[in-house]
Each structure stands twice: as structure tokens, then as C-alpha cells.
């Protein structure tokens, strides 16, 4: 017996098995043939066995019908990782001309129970471009596009998930898909900053900052102006002040500069870091975090490349000293890594 909750009355309705339902009498279910002695047999519920047996039959026949569509929903709700059911369901939506917004609402509903599932997100992404062809809004301004109900709903859905699970990998990835597909870059930085304000250690948000900043241009295309660099350095240092022992802002700002403007590590980042380390409010916390010393190694190693002779070897010697400090005192779990950095510095000189 399948227990189904009636949406209006909230009573449990007992449906008979599909084999006893008139509606399904024309279908011969296809059982799962696992052979005589299968490995790792799952103790399925009778309900699951029956619905998947009927579903196999429906797919094999290539059936396009509302009952097939409803059945796909039941299968997905029982096993959201049933990737074949999702593919079949999408085909039915198209073939039956079903309402895509309604489907997105249904996915939102079941996502409460299946939040870390690949297929659900992929389905949404595939449906979204069907609902709203990016070409149809190309001519609109970004502000106009963001107001489009399809886009607004999608961003809202992602926000809701991130609110409950701030680092949900699929959610952040999906957000990138939406932003990229519809070119709504201008609004993204505000979302990023909100998330960083919520939790300054949310690395998914910091990764998204890079995404929003560069509008996903390639490393060759994006130009980091001095103005922009100063702004980002200022922002990162402000966040470092909140909790110096937080890897994210350090990783972010060094990664950004190393990739796009290595010379600015020494010219623009170092003065700000030195200022911080000299500030009595922050000096102790900053000098105790391995990320500070690690930043110095990166900055000085890069700096040394632009120098020669004694100037160069002095800078390298300082970087090597920082590696030793890290290996022995501030970051011993990474002693082998600091040894590798030291070897590289010694080889360079």
C-alpha cells in the first residue's frame, strides 16, 4: 500500500499498489533482474520496487503521458539521484508542453529534502534556459534582466539554499551559471559582500568575489587596474582585521595579485600589511597567524625576481627566514611545504 498525504485534508490516503490500479492495467512492469546472488542488494521498500518496475516499463515504451510524468516525480522523490528519471522528466515536460515555472516550483518543494543532489541543480539550469532564452533579454539592461521573474525567482531560490547551507557547492555553482548565462554581473558584488558580512570565513563567497570582479574573463583578458587593486587590497585588509587568522582574505588577495599583477604584491599589498602589523591593535594577532608570514614569503619571493645582486639575495634571505619560522614555529604541519619553498628560493639565488 502506498501512503499518500492528501494536500487538502492532510489525511493519509491509502492507495492500492499500482498492480491493482485500473489506470496502470495496460502496463507490464519490468522487474530489476539482479541475478541469482547479487552483491550489495538493497532492501528496497515494496513501494519503491513497484514504482521503479513500472517506470522502467514506461521508459522502455517511450511513453509520453501525464501519468508517466507523475510517476517520474514519485521516483525522483524516493531517489533524487535517479539521473535517468530526471532526463526522462525533462523530455516529458517539453513533449507535453508543461509549464516550466510550475516545474521549478515543484523542484523547489522537493529540494527541501534533497539539498546536496547534483541532478536537481542541473535540471533547474536546463529548465531555466528553456523558460527564458538568454537571447530574448540580451537587449535589456542588466537592471531590467534582474527584474525578470524567471531570473529573480532563480536567484531567490539560490539565496534560500545558501541561507541554510552557506557553502553549498551546487548552489554557488548554479548562481555562477545564472549570472554567466544572463550577464547580470553588476548585482553580484552586493550579494558577495552580504555573504562575507554573514561569515567572513565563507570561502565560497570569497571565490565568488573573484568571479564577480573579473566577470569570469580569462586571466589573459581581465585587466587589474591600480585603482581596482587598491580597492580590493583595502577590502581584503579590512576583513583580515576582523580575524587575522582567517585564510580566505589572504588567499584571495594574494591569488588575485599573483595572477593579474604580481608586481603589485610588493608595491601595493606589502605597505598595507606592514601597516597592519605595526598597528598595536592588530600586531599580536597578525604576527601569530601563519598567513601573515606566508604572505611575506610570497611577496618577497616575487620581489626578488625584479632585483639583482646583494639586494636580491637580501630579500631572498628574508623570505627564507620566514620559511624557517613557519616550518619550526607557526606552521609545523606544513614543514615539508616550507622546506620546498626554501629550496626554490635557494635555487633561485
Amino acid at each position, binding site marked *: 500500500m502506498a501512503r499518500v498525504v492528501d494536500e487538502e485534508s492532510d489525511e493519509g490516503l491509502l492507495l492500492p499498489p499500482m498492480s491493482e490500479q485500473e489506470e496502470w492495467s495496460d502496463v507490464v512492469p519490468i522487474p530489476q533482474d*539482479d541475478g541469482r546472488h547479487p552483491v*550489495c542488494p538493497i532492501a528496497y521498500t515494496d513501494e519503491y520496487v513497484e514504482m*521503479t518496475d513500472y517506470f522502467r516499463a514506461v521508459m522502455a515504451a517511450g511513453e509520453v503521458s501525464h501519468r508517466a510524468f507523475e510517476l517520474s516525480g514519485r521516483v525522483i522523490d524516493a531517489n533524487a539521484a535517479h539521473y*535517468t528519471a530526471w532526463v526522462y522528466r525533462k523530455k516529458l515536460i517539453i513533449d507535453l508542453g508543461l509549464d516550466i515555472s510550475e516545474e521549478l516550483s515543484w523542484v523547489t518543494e522537493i529540494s527541501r529534502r534533497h539539498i546536496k543532489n547534483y541532478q536537481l541543480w542541473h535540471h533547474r539550469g536546463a529548465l531555466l534556459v528553456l523558460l527564458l532564452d538568454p537571447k530574448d533579454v540580451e537587449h535589456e539592461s542588466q537592471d531590467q534582466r534582474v527584474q525578470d521573474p524567471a531570473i529573480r525567482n532563480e536567484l531567490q531560490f539560490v539565496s534560500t539554499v545558501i541561507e541554510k547551507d552557506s557553502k553549498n557547492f551546487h548552489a554557488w555553482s548554479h548562481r555562477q551559471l545564472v549570472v554567466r548565462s544572463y550577464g547580470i554581473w553588476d548585482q553580484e558584488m552586493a550579494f558577495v559582500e552580504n555573504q562575507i558580512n554573514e561569515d567572513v*570565513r565563507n570561502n565560497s563567497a570569497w571565490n565568488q568575489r573573484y568571479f564577480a570582479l573579473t566577470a569570469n574573463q580569462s586571466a589573459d583578458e581581465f585587466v587589474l587596474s591600480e585603482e581596482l587593486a587598491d580597492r580590493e587590497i583595502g577590502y581584503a585588509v579590512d576583513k583580515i582585521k576582523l580575524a587575522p587568522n582567517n585564510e580566505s582574505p589572504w588567499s584571495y588577495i594574494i591569488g588575485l595579485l599573483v595572477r593579474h599583477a604580481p608586481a603589485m604584491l610588493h608595491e601595493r599589498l606589502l605597505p598595507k600589511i606592514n601597516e597592519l602589523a605595526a598597528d598595536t591593535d592588530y600586531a599580536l594577532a597578525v604576527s601569530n597567524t601563519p598567513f601573515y608570514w606566508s604572505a611575506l614569503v610570497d611577496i618577497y619571493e616575487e620581489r626578488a625576481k625584479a632585483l639583482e645582486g646583494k639586494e636580491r639575495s637580501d630579500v631572498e634571505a628574508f623570505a627564507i627566514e620566514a620559511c624557517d619560522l613557519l616550518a619550526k614555529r607557526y606552521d609545523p604541519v*606544513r614543514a615539508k611545504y616550507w622546506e620546498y619553498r626554501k629550496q626554490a628560493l635557494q635555487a633561485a639565488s
Partner: protein
Amino acid sequence: MSHVFSYGFRYDDNECETETSVAQAEVEDLVGDIYLNFVETGTLAQGGGAIDDSRHKLLRAKHEQFIHDAINGLPSSFTLLDASQPWFSFWCLNSLEILGCNISQQLRSRVIDKLSRLQCPGGGFCGGSGHLPHLAGSYGAIMALVLVGGNAAYETIDRPGMYSWLMSMKCPDGAFTMHAGGEVDVRGIYCALVIASLLNIMTPELVKGAAEFIARCQTCEGGIGPYPGVEAHGGYTLCGLAALDILGKTDLLRLDRLARWMSARQLAFEGGFNGRTNKLVDGCYSYWMGGAFPILQKALKRTRVDGYIYDRAALQRYILACCQDRRSGGLRDKPGKSPDLYHTMYCLIGLSLSQHYVGVEPKEQIADITSVYSVPVRMMQWGAMPASLLVLGLRSNVVKPVHPVYSVPYTPLASFVKHFYALPPLADQLA
């Protein structure tokens, strides 16, 4: 062997609590309690003491029992993994093999039977009965058949079908879709290249653009994400790096940035790895992160004497002290979580790759590294170098060495490769 255990290595939140630091503190509480049990009495002072690592024991019999129980049946909660059937065989067989347990002929036959029912007429293996073929399912199936070994297993595989199906999953940008109408990410490239390199169905068309796609997935942090722009993540980093090693193109990455990000994933207090910056430790990253170091080592042309760029003993300590479930057997993500087959296998692979130094010495690396035709030779160059063996705890903890790219032991891997590379190339390969 001793290690100074200190609460000084706990995460310093600078008195600025956020969701991240609270979650981290909770894990450290659990892990700290466990490590405290190993601190030598008499050395415990305020904040820490010397850990006695000599007592760590790999509970082989308990894990073997856990695996065999699973082979006999899984509870209904596993319905959520019903579309990942080939993986069950892979997780079970690889765990047994690494532990050095006997795998009966009967079990081997049962796996062959199971997997042959999951092979699709058009090529590729599906995740379950009636499903579309899937790249991860195909990967799991092939790896399980590697472990079963023998002609009956090898001849099960529809090699030409697999090639044409893989080509139908190939995307113009160089990546692969996981299944028809499915998602595209770096996992697909790894699965496709592992399968193709093992079955001797590598062609320039199959691999075209894949290396460049992976390179575009390296983020500013230095690690690799699933898709260009997405956050760097341990799973995708292993997939990307391993795929690039198969292709001989690890040089497309900024290796110095990758090394930095990878080494930063090891947690100072726990000793295990997390998968992303500011996330929690998880036993499965013992492979996804720990297993990436041997591949990085080769790419950097470092030697055995140089050593891996991470703390091998600390990882083993985490696996042995914190990831084993003493009551039920099996290994787990972290204390407080239940053990499962996935974590059992990946913790054991991570244990293997931290005990054994596996690599290819720089002077032996062959010159022709990017041709698809040199793949088998390069793959089989990998081997364990006993002089750098490092076994934490009892000497009996040592498990079988595995290949870091394929994550399975060398003997079954070599037999499989030998069989498939003795076969004539497919017509497509000659084209």
C-alpha cells in the same frame, strides 16, 4: 616515533566567532578528546604533551566484516545510492584488496554477473537497471572489473561500444557530459580518461581539448574546481591532476600555486585534510588530497629523498585514531559520523598512499610524455619505493601500495593493462 600534541594548534578564531569557526571548534573538541588518549602519561602539561603513536592499530578484521556485511545486503536507506550500483562493487573490492583480504572466486563471479547486467547495449555502464549509461558508473564498473581480474572479467567489457559511447559524451570544449543530458565537469574528464587509458582506446579525438579545459578550472587559490570559475575543491583537484598526468600535461597548471593550495588543505590540529578553504576535515580527502601529492611530486620532478610536500604521519594518525569505527568496523568522515563504504575505501586508499612512497624518479621519466600512445608505459612506471615507507603505529598496519591515478593496487592494474594493450587497436585508433 613521537609527536607533540598541543591545544596551541587549535584554530584561533581571534575572538571573532562565525558559523565556520564554531563548526571547526566542535570538530576539534571531538578530535582533541581522541588524541588526548594517546598522550603519554607524565608528559601531559597544560596545553599538550607527547603523543605515543606506537599503539595505533588498523582494525583489519572489523573492517573486513563491515565490508562483507555490506556485500550481503544494504538497508533501505541506500535507496538514495540506487543509481550508483557499480560503485558498491568498487568500494568493497578495493577495500578488501588494499587490506590484503582474500576475495573468493564466488565473490568475483557475483561481481562480474552484476556488472554485466549494468552494461548498456550501446556501450558504457549504467548506474542501475534501466538507467542511461553514466561516466561515473562506467568508471566504478571498470575499476571493479580491474580488481576482479581474469579473462572472464576482461571479456565482459564491450570495448568498441565503450569507445563510441565515450565519444558521444565528448563536448566541443574538451570536457565530457556525465550522461546524455547530464552535467559537465572535471569528473567526467577523469572518468573518461581513466577508462580509455585502461582499455587501450585513447585517441587524439577523445582527448582533444581536455587538458586545456582542466587548466581553465584552476582558480586563483591554486586548486581546481569542477568548471571554470567555481571554487577549488579536493575531489575535482585529484580528478584534474590525475587526468593531466594521464595526458602528460601537468605543466599546463601553475604547479607552485597548486602546491600551496594543496598543502594548505592539511589541518594543523586534526592532521587530516579538508577539501576547500575554511571547511571541515573529512576522511575521504585522505585520498582526494593525500593522493594528489604523489602526482604533484612527479609533476614537480621531485625525488624520493625530497619527500612529499605534506605531513604523512599526521594524516595516518587522523585516519587510524579518528576514522576507524571500533564498534561496527568500517571507516568514516570524522568522529561522530557513521562509517560507510565510500569513506572506508577512500580512507584506506589515503592510508596506503601515505604509508608508501609511490612515484617516478625524475631521471626515469620518459621524454615522450604527451602522446596518447605512450600512456601505458608512463602509467606503469609508477611504483612503491620501500626505502621511504612510513608506517605509523603497529608494523602490521601496512596495507598494499596503490597507483595514485587509478587508486587500485599495482598487480591487478598491471594484469588489466597487459590484457588490453595486447589487443589490436580499434579501427578508430588507426584512423
